Structure formats: structure tokens, C-alpha cells
């Protein structure tokens, strides 16, 4: 098999060389003049090709917009999501206009001004007016875009809800663990030196962690209730990516990062909207983390407060599942879940 492929390649190369020798010989026979390296006919053809190509490129673009419209992410399922989507759409319209406009002009120049013998190009070296136009217009448009973008960024990144449910998303090669803060809404302290058999998160005995609830596989959140995620990693950098909520934050060993959002569409509602009763929101890893990076996931269930309460009451607290005397390490002087600085490193 390999031999066959190699043989085909070798033959292809030999054939290519033969074709080229013939082409070279025939060019010499025709005694081609060397002062017109590109002929008028070739210029005309290439100019036409440019026009055709750009039309084809637009068609390809339009076809993709049409064919892929149902394959893209569905409407945002978080409170801040529509704001991001609107900014995206505004920017997309803007850049599509630029893309199409400049390509029309580009293809038109190539088509219209294809060279021929005896043609004289216009000597046009600069124009302060034109250059001013395409410095100032982009500057003005970009100023608007920057202002708009930063407004959205500030809204998203500093939501400042006071009653947010605290959930820790803890990452390691290659899975996620979610930890709920429990009744006191305060996560118990943890330290990587406390990690051991039956204590994957390195929970420490400080009392505050006893009511924490640790879950794997899927975690639940409540519709219209803000959630403050605190991210940690115990080995390499991961990234907690929740595309349906337009949310993402890296999980960095040695520091805690945060992201807060409010889900707005329950899983059941989204299934109905999509006509897919198997649909689930997912948490993916989006920072290369090793061999199984492509399969590091957790399902996210968005539900009503009642369903959530029911689910939560079925889960065991840390006090219930922990094995006695797993905690050996001293409480560290450098706790790593407590710093109040949040993402502010």
C-alpha cells in the first residue's frame, strides 16, 4: 500500500518534470520575446478570473450564512448573553460591509485595469485628502466600537449581584468537579496539600466546608438566579467554557478566578426551542490540557427553584461523605480559596 502510494508520487513527479521540459522546449521553439513576460491575453484572463473569484467568494460566504445558520449556537441563555450577541452582530454587520465593499473595489480594479500593450497607467502618487478620509473614518468608527465594546465588557465582568449562589468549578486532568457552598453560602477552605484518597479537592477541616456539596457529571443552577463561579485548577491551566451562556474563564493553578452570570432559559425550555429533547448545556475545557482535553466535560442543568431545591436536597454534604481522619495537613498560611481579590490578581 505504502509502496503503491510512493510509486504514484514518484511517477507524478516524473510526469510533471517531463511536461515542464516539453513546455520549456515549445516556448523556445516559439522564440518567445522576453520583453513581454505576461501577454495581453493572460492579463485579460487573470483580470476576469479575479472578478469571477470574488463573485464566487461572496456566493460561498452567502451559502455558508444560509447553510450553517442552524448549526451555530442558539440564543444566549444568560442575562448578559443578548448584550454580547448584539455587540457581535453589530460588529459582524460592520465588518461584512468592509469585507464586501473592499473586495468589490479590489476585484473591479483587477478586472478593469488589467494591462495591455501601449496602455499608460495614471501617475497618482498620493492625495492627502484621500488618506485623511481613510484614516479619520476608521478612527471614528473604531472609537464608537471601542466605547460600545467596553460598556458591554464592564456590564458583563462587574455584574455585582449581592445574592449570587457561590459554586466552585474545580478542574483537573481530565474532569470537572462542582462544589456548592451549602447553607452558609461560604466555601470551605481547601489546599492542594490536603488532596488524598477520598478528598479530591483537598478540603480542609475548618467547619465551613462541612455543609459543602460536591458533585460530578452534572451540576444544577436556577433560572434567573445569579451564580458566582469560582474556578480552580490543581494541575495545568484549563478553561471553563460554557458557550450557551456566553461565559468563559481560565482555571489557573495557584490562583482563583471568577465569573458571574444569571441563566435565563431552563434546560427544558431550551430543549423545546431547539426541538431536541436530548439537548444539554455543557461545560467544556477550552485550554489545551493534555491527551483527553477534547473530552473534559460536565453537563449543566438549568431548572426552576423547586426542582433545584429537590435536587440539592438529594445530594450529600461533605460532612456526610468524607471519611474520618482524611485530613492530615495543617491549615496552611496561604489558603487558596479565600482571597477576596477575586479575578483581580
Amino acid at each position: 500500500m505504502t509502496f503503491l502510494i510512493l510509486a504514484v508520487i514518484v511517477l507524478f513527479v516524473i510526469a510533471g518534470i517531463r511536461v515542464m521540459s516539453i513546455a520549456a522546449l515549445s516556448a523556445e521553439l516559439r522564440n518567445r520575446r522576453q520583453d513581454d513576460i505576461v501577454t495581453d491575453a493572460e492579463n485579460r484572463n487573470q483580470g476576469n478570473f479575479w472578478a469571477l473569484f470574488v463573485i464566487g467568494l461572496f456566493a460561498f460566504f452567502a451559502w455558508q450564512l444560509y447553510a450553517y445558520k442552524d448549526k451555530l449556537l442558539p440564543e444566549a441563555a444568560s442575562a448578559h448573553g443578548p448584550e454580547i450577541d448584539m455587540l457581535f452582530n453589530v460588529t459582524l454587520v460592520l465588518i461584512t460591509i468592509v469585507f464586501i465593499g473592499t473586495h468589490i473595489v479590489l476585484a473591479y480594479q483587477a478586472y478593469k485595469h488589467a494591462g495591455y500593450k501601449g496602455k499608460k497607467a495614471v501617475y497618482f502618487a498620493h492625495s492627502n485628502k484621500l488618506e485623511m478620509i481613510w484614516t479619520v473614518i476608521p478612527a471614528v468608527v473604531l472609537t464608537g466600537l471601542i466605547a460600545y465594546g467596553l460598556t458591554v465588557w464592564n456590564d458583563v465582568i462587574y455584574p455585582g449581584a449581592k445574592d449570587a449562589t457561590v459554586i466552585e468549578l474545580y478542574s483537573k486532568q481530565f474532569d470537572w468537579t462542582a462544589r456548592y457552598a451549602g447553607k452558609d453560602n461560604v466555601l470551605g477552605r481547601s489546599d492542594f496539600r490536603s488532596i488524598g484518597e477520598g478528598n479530591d479537592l483537598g478540603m480542609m477541616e475548618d467547619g465551613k466546608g462541612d455543609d459543602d456539596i460536591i458533585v460530578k457529571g452534572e451540576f444544577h443552577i436556577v433560572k434567573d438566579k445569579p451564580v458566582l463561579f469560582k474556578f480552580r485548577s490543581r494541575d495545568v491551566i484549563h478553561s471553563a467554557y460554557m458557550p450557551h451562556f456566553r461565559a468563559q474563564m481560565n482555571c489557573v493553578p495557584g490562583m482563583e478566578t471568577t465569573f458571574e452570570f444569571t441563566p435565563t432559559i431552563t434546560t427544558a425550555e431550551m430543549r423545546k426551542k431547539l426541538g431536541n429533547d436530548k439537548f444539554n448545556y455543557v461545560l467544556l475545557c477550552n485550554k489545551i490540557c493534555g491527551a483527553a482535553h477534547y473530552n473534559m466535560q460536565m453537563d449543566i442543568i438549568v431548572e426552576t427553584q423547586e426542582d433545584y431545591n429537590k435536587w440539592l436536597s438529594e445530594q450529600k454534604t461533605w460532612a456526610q461523605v468524607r471519611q474520618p481522619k482524611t485530613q492530615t495537613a495543617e491549615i496552611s498560611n496561604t489558603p487558596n480559596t479565600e482571597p477576596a481579590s477575586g479575578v483581580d490578581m
Partner: protein
Amino acid sequence: MSAMETNLPHSESDVKAVVAGHAHAHEHDEDEHHHHETFISKYIFSQDHKMIAKQFLITAVFMGVIAMLMSVVFRLQLAWPGKSFPVLEAVLGKWAPGGVLDPNFYLALVTIHGTIMVFFVLTGGLSGTFSNLLIPLQLGARDMASGFLNMLSYWFFFASSCVMLFSVFIESGPASGGWTVYPPLSALEQAMPGSGLGMTLWLVSMSLFIVSSLLGSLNYIVTVLNLRTKGMSMTRMPLTIWAFLVTAILGVLSFPVLFAAALLLIFDRSFGTSFYLSDIYIGGQALEHNGGSPILYEHLFWFLGHPEVYIVLLPGLGITSEVIATNARKPIFGYRAMIASILGIAFLSFIVWGHHMFITGMNPFLGSVFVFTTLLIAIPSAVKAFNYITTLWKGNIQFTPAMLFAIGLVSFFITGGVTGLILGDSALDINLHDTYFVVAHFHLVMGSATIFGMFAGVYHWFPKLFGKLMNKKMGYVHFWLTFIGAYGVFFPMHFLGMAGVPRRYYSNTEFPIFDNLVDINVMVTWFAILAATAQIIFLLNFFYSIFKGQKSPQNPWKANTLEWTTPVEHIHGNWPGAIPEVHRWAYDYSKPGMADDFVPQTVPLTPEEEKEGAH
């Protein structure tokens, strides 16, 4: 400019004095055949900039072919995940058991593909080839300021390439943490097999590469500033030289920072320090390392990494300026604005690195600042794009293959550039960071655009490199297939990104939400195969033309710049007689009142021009 000109070497003897270290400097006026060069001094340890340019080019072509084949292999896996391709097992052995790519080796391929393309092809290959070839030739210099350093620059590059290629063949596999090699993944052998010896070799290779780049860049800067011929003021230099000069300055300022990043990583890996490591439990034990931060690495890496984008792109833009003006038979539009935009881009490129880090845990306010600077860089970029298009306006366009690639660059530069406005906006980056949208963006604006710049350069200066012409018809076929292929590969990737597909995934099959995207991946792979096949045409044309191509006339494209005043056959010292003197800028194409549609820089100004106060 007059202050600057006083520093110029005004006569040939001055030039010789500058290159006094050069053994042959005093023989230039004599018959060149009196040199007794051995095979080794001529072809291997050559100090002649033209030979070094060829060495860089051939090495880069070789590396490029390898990196491209790697991309075809992982594209097969992405389109048909889990399908067995017996040929893969035959070639890759244990890395593709049963003909299915191993996940670790998939990541290794992605990593080495990126590393080779960014550093070895588009940095070393592009700058190494064209800065070396064109800086002395277009400035009217006998050679680089230091031929010896120039030779060292190539051989460090060669050694670096060898180490990088060697790393692919070791037991535990090459570096696999992505081309950015973020620690702790790249720092800890327990994290993935590629972070063992493979990563060590990657760091050794990159260190050698940085040495090569610095030696080259310093040489380019010194040569441009000191060895311009009489009359070649800074504002008469072709835009190629401006681009190479600024690129070299960017390299000198940013590569040492990458070296620092790499050095600290070496310390963390081998000497137990904790610059980037803290609070890590891996492989069943808590590590001693404490107090470091991977964010520090990201800052250091991207402080190089973003200027690097422009180190890659600017030479391509410089080449395009030259090729478009020459083949439109028109002066480049807005010469001074082009210089200003190169300088503007270069300055801004140093203060935008944080846009790679919006969601790494960096302070969100700092993110806001980087949004501002990042979007500003669109202004000089827009100026360049519009100026290229205006240069075509009412031209007498000669569609040489080089011209096609140059216009292709403009197209990619726009298409890939505009999506930068999306990714540079931190709020939008939240959902697109590290998705295929990013892959699409940088492959168009940095990958495709720059490789097209490189192709434009190869087709345009092939006569200067090898004294032959490349086959034009094959050039046309090569261009259109590559152009269609590249758009076919990278355009649909935007949509994959908008569907939320992360990059560097071995397969999308584990997520039902991505099940409906399989056909996009299949189409992309077919386009990739098309584009890769088209490169066979290029390679055939390239190597055939070196040996059997049609002999080139002295000035095949009727260009104004000085390199076309040298003889077709390479000679040591470039010009057989005195170094030409320059009387005008490089862009007097189709100037009214002139007999020809080009006026070489060596032609003195006519009395009428003097009156008008021409350049």
C-alpha cells in the same frame, strides 16, 4: 533628510572601509573569477548574502512542506475521526496504531505545525530570505555589514531546525502543549508525554532560533542604517526595506523577552524553581513548587508573541508594496503614509499583547486598556489596505504570478483583519477565545496573507535568486488552487467558532452539540488537501526552474529598484564596477514625460523634475 545623508558612505571606498572585515573587499573592481572559492566556502559556509538568502529559502521550503503535511494528517483525523488510514500507521508507526492518530500525537502535530510555520517558515524563512537578499541589493551595498554574523545567523537557524525536526522522532514524542507552550502543561512531564524530552528539545531549538534571529536582525538594522549608497536617503528607500528594518527592530526588542520566558521555563523544568508553578497536585503527589504564576509566562510570551505577528506580517506587506507598484506600473500610493503606518503598527504591536489574555484571570480593567490599543491598530492597517487598492486604480496591471499572490495577500489581509475587530473586543472574546474563530482569524491574516507575501517574493525575485524565470502558467495554477484552497479551509472555520467548537480538540465526537458540524470539517479537509496538492505544482516549478528554467533577462519586470541593475549571474560584491548612485525614489512608474513606463533609481532627475522638486 540631509542630516542623515551626511552619515552615508559617499563613495565606494567608504563602503569598502565599512566592510573592511571582508577578505575580498579590495578585489571588487577586478574580475570576479579571480576569487578562489572552495565548494565549502561558496555553498556551505558562505558569507555572501545572496547565498545565505538561498540557504534560508531552501531550508524554509523544506520545513514548510513538513509542517503542511502535518496539517493534512491532523485534518484527516478532524474530518473522519477514528477512521483508519493504513498509510498513517505505515508512516507514523506507533503514533497511529491501526491507522488512527494517537491523541497525544495529534497535539504534537498541532504544536509542531504551529511552531514550524510561525517561526521557521514565516519568521526565519521570510525575513531570512528576503532581508538578506534585498537589503544589500536594494540599498546599493556590497554585502551585509557583517557577512560572518550573517553566516552564523543561518547556521544557528539550521541547527535550530535540525533540533526541532529531531524532536519529532524521539520515544516520548515532541512538544505537545500547543505552540504557545503554556506552563504548567509544558513544565511538567507528568502532565503529558510531550512535556518530557520533547519539550526540552523544543526549548533548545527555540533558544538557538532566537540567537539566529537576533544575529540576523542586528545585521539588518546596521546595514540599513549605514550601508546605503549615495543618494539613498531613508525616504528614498523602497518600502520592502522599510518593512525589513522595522521588522528587525521588532525582533531585537521582543525576542529577548521570549528568551527570558524560555529560560525561566527551563529553570522551572530542570532546576526546581517556581516562576510559573504553584499549588500543583499531579501524578498522585503535591509538588514542592510554590508561589509562581503561569500568568507571568503568558505576559512574557505574548510580549514577544504579538510583535511576532507583525514580525511575520510586515515583510509580507513590504514585498507586496514593491510587487504591486511594479506590476501596476504605478507609484505606490501614499509612500509616506505607508511608512507611517508601518511605524504605527510596529509601535502599537508592543502594547496589545494583553488581548491574548482577556479571560486568563488578568485584571479586567487591564483588559479594557488592551481593547483600546488593539482596536487602534486597525487604523494603520486600514490605511495600508486602502493604499494598496488605490495603487491598482487606473494601473496597467501586469498579472505576473507574483502580482496575483500580492493581490491575494491584500484580500487575506482584509478578510482576516476585520475579524480582529471581533476578537480584540474583550466582551466578544469571552465566547470566542480559543475557538475555531481564532484559528480562522490568524490563519487568514497572519498565515495565508504572509505565506502569499512569501510566494509573491519568491516568484518576483526568483530571477535575482537563481538567474532564471519560473514557469508562469504553473504559477497561475498554483496561485488559484492555493487561493481557493486557503479560503475554503479558513472561511468555514469562522462558523465552527461561532458554533462554539474549541481549538486543539482531537475530535468533536464527544459532544452531541457538535454532531451537526461533521460535514463542515469534511469540506475543510478536502480544501486542505486541494491546497496541499497545489504546493506540489509549486515545488516542481521551483526546483525545475532552478536547474532548467528559462534564463532571465537582467530586469524582467522592468522595475526601478537597484537589485535589477546587478548582473544576472551572482558576483561577489554585487556590482562589477562602482556602486550605483541613487537619484530618485523607487516608484517612478509611468511618470508623465518619460520615455519608458519605469525610471530606475539610478537615472538622474531631469531639469523639469528638479524644478518640480521631485523626490
